[in-house]
């Protein structure tokens, strides 16, 4: 649906986006992830036609920038970062204006608005001035703006930044709901957000794509061939426990961890192909120890993110 090739953007001498390639299929929710200043917003702004690329091509459903820019803008609903809206307009007037520009006939508008108000939770604020609204409500008006003409593609730039936890959950719910039938690209640096909402993650760092994988695959890929199991036992000594488990097939390293109350805690590293947990449990069971903790450490997105985007 969206194809991006060799997309490059220079701000004067500074290269913000360095020849990136990716494509997004219909119905995907793609999370654009990266530290501040990585080029996320610049990339989204080029997709929406706000900025023109220095080099490279963008095509959306067979239309290309910049020749068909108006057609592409018509297919994309865009929520810029922190939803900069006309503060002195009323919510209703604003949405009516947007509806006009996006080509929604006057007689269809009322039914359209009712649907939008329900989806975005705008009940009871249509008569207020946009400038008086809280950040969360403004974000919803921005979302209604983006979804005005039922666009096939939604592009959301940090849709939850600056919101409180309740508002974040609300907005996330709306996004997931929209995502069932539309293509969504959202940028964020909140990792739990992409984990919760996105099918696919593209990580950008310093203008380059450093990872582009389905969310599940990405989480697996970095943990790769090493897996850590943590065990904590009571009524034992470090040497005893180490001696008991160290000859299990697949274990590559043992590391003593600090545990409270005189418990013994070990990090047992093993190769990825083999599940050492049954054997490990068997060894512990055969002793008179009390098993307090037994779990496999999940590499979180956070670790992956840090590994991929840390300064070289």
């Amino acid at each position, binding site marked *: 649906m969206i194809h991006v090739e060799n997309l490059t953007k220079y701000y004067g001498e500074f290269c913000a986006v360095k020849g990136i390639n990716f494509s997004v299929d219909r119905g995907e929710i793609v999370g654009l992830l990266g530290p501040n200043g990585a080029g996320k917003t610049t990339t989204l*702004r080029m997709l*929406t*036609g*706000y*900025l*023109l690329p220095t080099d490279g091509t963008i095509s959306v459903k067979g239309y290309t920038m910049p020749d068909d*820019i*108006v*057609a592409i*803008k*018509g297919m*994309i609903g*865009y929520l*810029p970062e*922190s939803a*900069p*809206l*006309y*503060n*002195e*307009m009323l919510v209703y*007037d604003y949405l009516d*204006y*947007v509806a*006009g*520009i*996006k*080509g929604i006939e006057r007689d269809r508008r009322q039914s359209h608005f009712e649907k939008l108000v329900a989806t975005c939770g705008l009940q009871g604020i249509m008569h207020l001035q946009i400038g008086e609204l809280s950040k969360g409500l403004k974000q919803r008006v921005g979302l209604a*703006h983006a979804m005005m003409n039922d666009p096939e593609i939604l592009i959301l730039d940090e849709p939850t930044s600056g919101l409180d936890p309740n508002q974040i959950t609300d907005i996330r719910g709306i996004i997931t709901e929209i995502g069932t039938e539309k293509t969504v690209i959202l940028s964020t640096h909140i990792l739990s957000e992409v984990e919760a909402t996105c099918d696919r993650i593209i990580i950008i760092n310093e203008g380059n794509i450093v990872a582009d994988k389905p969310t599940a695959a990405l989480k697996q890929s970095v943990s790769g061939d090493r897996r850590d199991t943590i065990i904590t036992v009571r009524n034992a000594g470090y040497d005893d426990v180490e001696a008991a488990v160290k000859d299990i097939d697949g274990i590559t390293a043992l590391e003593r961890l600090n545990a409270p109350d005189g418990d013994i805690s070990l990090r047992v590293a093993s190769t990825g192909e083999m599940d050492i947990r049954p054997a490990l449990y068997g060894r512990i069971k055969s002793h008179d120890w009390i098993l307090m903790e037994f779990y496999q450490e999940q590499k979180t997105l956070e670790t992956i993110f840090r590994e991929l985007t840390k300064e070289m």
Partner: protein
Amino acid sequence: MQVMRILRKELQDYFVSPIAYIVISIFLLVTGWFFFSTFFIFGQASLRNFFSLLPIVFSFIVPAVTMRLFAEEIKVGSYEIILTMPVTFRDIILGKFFAGVTLIAAMLVPTLAYPVSISFIGTVDWGPVAGGYMGALFLGAAFAAVGIWASSVTRNQIVAFIVGTVICFALALIDKMLIFFPRGIVNFIAFFGADYHFQNIAKGVVDSRDVLYFLSVMFIGLYATYMTLHSRN
């Protein structure tokens, strides 16, 4: 069509907020005062005094009308919103330009009371009056194009106002400054004076050269705006 929608929204902004009323009041106050303070001394039933002042007054008032059109959007960030909707630069620029021109026209409407009230106390020659109003619209539109360009180069409305005023003021005054120029190019320089062309039309003589002058200023101003906005992305 998109031009009309943007025009409507801009006009709504002008008239919902106090801007329009303040600008119109100041305009009427200034022109009314200068016009009538000498009107009874001359004792002539003409609007000549009113029109002769207009270029100077407009070079302050018009940039005040247009200064917010782009600068505010760029500052608030709503510029990103309007630019990512299915509109072209041309739609945006023309919509805002015509909104400014409409406000200027609305500002001139109440001054029609001058010729009407004068017609009760003397015989008004309606030709120059009609020409004057037509010229005033051309002048206002040309200055609006300059003001819009000034508004597109900055995110600061005060800067936009000052830049716009300086250029309009120069255009309005240039033919009063002709003594400073070498004799050979005086005629050439005089051609750039907005006042010179405006006074021609205000005499009731609509010459295509004068009309062309104002249309050129509008075109240059709007095209410069287009180039400025374009270079922004």
